[in-house]
């Protein structure tokens, strides 16, 4: 195979070898280099990704209708087709109404949220099975940067870990590599929310003397993680208090259903910046 390699291929191979050796020899510097090289490629790939995301959504609807139509009885085919058509239209309208309602709620929430946010659409899942992440259709152009918090109407979702011009990657709070400082709403005890490989969430480092109990809501503390204070995270479902341990640990049922994420809000400024008061008109000079 090497005998048949052309000059161009040899140059490309040499570049690959150089890149790989750079990754091992200078990991931090090469990361910056890779990010710089990757931005234009990510923008190109974002286009088919967006198209596929829309096509996938439409194909799901078409498949749903096909399955429904297969059950239509032969005798009333014409009539039932009409019904199915109307049902389809009704389903479309319901879907549009639901989307409108969701977006309306999102806008209302955005207007009253205790932070400045940017609304974004989820266009894909993490490209590997090793991380719990989602891809958003907004990026640096929309003011999104790494480490910003991501939430929905119901609660905290995760934090932005990678950004490109028109897309960004979010690490969900269910990922074992994610940590968000939170507090138990009733007792005000602080802890750290971490994901598990099973897709659940645990709260670690709860003080031993805390009177935490099952059913207590957990909210973000606002100290780190790019979230404002008080964003719901979940509800405590189980508490582990082992002898000899310095802290308690609790299982938390997240508020957000991560399998049904469609639209999210990226927290650009965790605390709302009050608009400065309008400048007072200059006093008229007395004659």
């Amino acid at each position, binding site marked *: 195979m090497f005998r048949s390699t052309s000059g161009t291929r040899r140059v490309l191979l040499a570049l690959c070898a150089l890149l790989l050796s750079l990754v091992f020899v200078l990991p931090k510097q090469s990361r910056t280099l890779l990010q710089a090289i990757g931005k234009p490629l990510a923008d190109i790939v974002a286009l088919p990704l967006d198209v596929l995301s829309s096509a996938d959504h439409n194909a799901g609807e078409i498949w749903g209708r096909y399955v429904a139509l297969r059950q239509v009885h032969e005798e009333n085919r014409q009539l039932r087709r009409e019904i199915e058509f109307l049902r389809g239209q009704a389903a479309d309208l319901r879907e549009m109404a639901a989307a409108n309602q969701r977006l309306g709620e999102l806008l209302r929430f955005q207007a009253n949220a205790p932070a400045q946010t940017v609304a974004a659409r989820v266009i894909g899942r993490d490209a*590997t099975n090793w991380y719990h992440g989602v891809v958003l259709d907004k990026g640096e152009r929309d003011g999104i940067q790494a480490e910003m918090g991501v939430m929905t109407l119901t609660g905290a979702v995760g934090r932005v870990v990678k950004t490109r011009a028109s897309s960004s990657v979010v690490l969900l709070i269910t990922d074992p590599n994610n940590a968000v400082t939170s507090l138990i709403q009733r007792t005000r005890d602080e802890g750290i929310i971490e994901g598990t490989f099973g897709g659940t969430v645990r709260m670690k480092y709860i003080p031993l003397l805390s009177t935490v109990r099952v059913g207590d809501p957990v909210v973000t503390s606002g100290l780190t993680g790019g979230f404002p204070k008080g964003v719901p995270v979940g509800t405590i479902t189980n508490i582990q208090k082992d002898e000899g341990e310095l802290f308690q640990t609790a299982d938390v049922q997240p508020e957000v259903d991560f399998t049904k994420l469609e639209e999210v809000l990226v927290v650009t400024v965790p605390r709302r910046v009050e608009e400065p008061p309008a400048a007072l008109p200059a006093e008229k000079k007395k004659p």
Partner: protein
Amino acid sequence: MKPLLYVGLVLGVVPIQTTVLDHLSVAGVRPDLCLVAACLIGFFGGLADGVLMGVLLGFEQDLFSAGDAWINLTTKAVIGLSAGVVGRYVARATPVTVFPMVLGLSVCSGIAFLFAGAGGQGTLAAVRSVLLPQAMFDTAVGMGLYWILAERFRKDDSLV
């Protein structure tokens, strides 16, 4: 033909992996199409093609993953290289020959991810819930794709 196929793979595999493949997931685990692609390209197209496509697909996968910006790049390059070496020494390949190759490379790739800290503290849970199911899934998809491609590309020798 071959450059077109490769451009198509570069533009298509990762978007498919992040969107459509979610419907094929079993217990949240999907086959790693980039791994299977690097493996088959190395096996059919040879060592050089395997490394080049492994680097490109891995790099692209890193762009749309929450992990470090080098892990997929290096693992996929090594997978392309290894599959290329295997392809050079296997005279009569069958789907059964592909089985240990894809399985072994997928498991090795998973171990690399675990060493890179992808599993957090739950290494055993990660092996049970991601590494092994993904290796089986990758192997099944790899064998299926091999079965489809083998006749075409082995006969006209267009990728070798």
